[in-house]
């Protein structure tokens, strides 16, 4: 079973980085979102440094919603999903593996790119470290909650916008605690650990709830 799960992970990663896979586009989108902000609010570095963590979080949130709808829809279209449904491996674990592959190709690059983009926004080293740490802990929650939306939209020809509409309201707590932890680290008025641990808790809850709900959604939609 471990070998099967590893094969699914390897397959999704390979597909993401081959032609037409779309792995890495998320980072480019992240860069584009962060780049347009100074044009909208003006290029004053003190202001950008103040709103920078929030901008990075919003950019990461939007970038990780990108491509969510393809997690299961591509497999649905070429018939792979039927094979996965018949496989002796529990669908929950398959969904978790696909979520992990999506996080590695979308979430992790965002975390790596965040310090670099933070420099563009004039963030201090402390804020850079904090926003990178919160993104590292928080983006799995975004991906695994998004997994539910991806599963619900599995049979839809154009599910992209719908997935974003379904998932965005549920991601608000992640955004709140992510930005709160970063602000806490910068201002030092409240301890960094409290919102950071809540963020970690949200990720752990998402890690459990996401694959289970996604597998349930795929089963009930396709029976």
């Amino acid at each position, binding site marked *: 079973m471990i070998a099967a799960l590893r094969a699914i992970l390897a397959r999704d990663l390979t597909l993401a980085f081959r032609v037409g896979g779309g792995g890495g586009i998320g980072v480019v989108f992240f860069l584009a979102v962060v780049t347009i902000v100074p044009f909208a609010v003006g290029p004053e570095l003190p202001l950008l440094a103040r709103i920078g963590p929030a901008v990075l979080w919003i950019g990461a949130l939007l970038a990780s919603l990108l491509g969510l709808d393809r997690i299961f829809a591509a497999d649905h279209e070429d018939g792979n999903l039927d094979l996965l449904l018949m496989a002796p491996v529990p669908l929950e674990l398959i969904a978790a593996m696909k979520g992990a592959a999506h996080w590695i190709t979308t979430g992790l690059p965002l975390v790596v790119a965040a310090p670099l983009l933070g420099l563009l926004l004039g963030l201090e080293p402390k804020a850079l470290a904090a926003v990178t740490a919160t993104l590292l802990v928080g983006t799995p929650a975004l991906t695994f909650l998004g997994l*539910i939306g991806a599963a*619900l939209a599995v049979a*839809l020809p154009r599910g992209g916008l*719908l997935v974003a*509409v379904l998932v965005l309201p*549920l991601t*608000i707590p992640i955004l709140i605690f992510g930005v709160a932890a970063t602000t806490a680290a910068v201002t030092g008025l409240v301890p960094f650990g409290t919102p950071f641990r809540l963020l970690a808790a949200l990720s752990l809850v998402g890690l459990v709830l996401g694959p289970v709900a996604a597998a349930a959604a795929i089963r009930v939609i396709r029976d």
Partner: protein
Amino acid sequence: MALLDLANPHRFLAFARALVPALALIAAVLLVLGLVLGFRAPPDYQQGETVRIMFIHVPAAWIALGAYTLMAISALGTLVWRHPLADVSAKAAAPIGAAFSLICLLTGALWGRPTWGTYWVWDARLTSVLVLFLVYLGILALWRAIEDPGQAARAVAILTLVGFVNVPIVKFSVDWWNTLHQPASVFRIGGPTIHPVLLTPLLVTAAGFAALFLALHLGAMRNEILRRRVRALRMLAAAGAEAR
């Protein structure tokens, strides 16, 4: 068991036909009575005349939460018990619940302007109700996105259950966070903190809104059943035309 008897859509239609006018009448009487009592009540010593907005705002909020809870129970009915009318009930409740949360948000904004000096603040209670409204809109969008009613119902049921986490957040947001919005003053340990002269019209309008919701919900369920029959007949007719 009554709920099991109503699983037959035919019997349900007869039941709804009898009940909808009665509930609508009860709603009209209670709402008129509640509003008359509400307008005859003395103005609040702090809020002045604007306190009367509460008689619409608070029941609308209760119904918005109640409708979501009903949808979540219906979602369980769809997924677990496979009750044939559960998905009809969930589908009928969604637009009504969305409308009541919008009423709650709008009346709250109108009340907030003279009382707090602003139409909107990003406080936990207001934000969580806005999220509730967004979840309602997402559910409506998902209903419209999937063509087959059975498939749509099962997908929406999962989304409804996931979105239910927001309902306790709305309810307890005023206790968990320091909000500008006042804490619960009717359903609380130690009894209501509102004076009876204001509490009575509130409870009467709340009962009226509940009756109105039930009338609208049963009516919408009846419409949905009929709509599905029309769909089935049309598909039969189309299949017949193809065969010939």
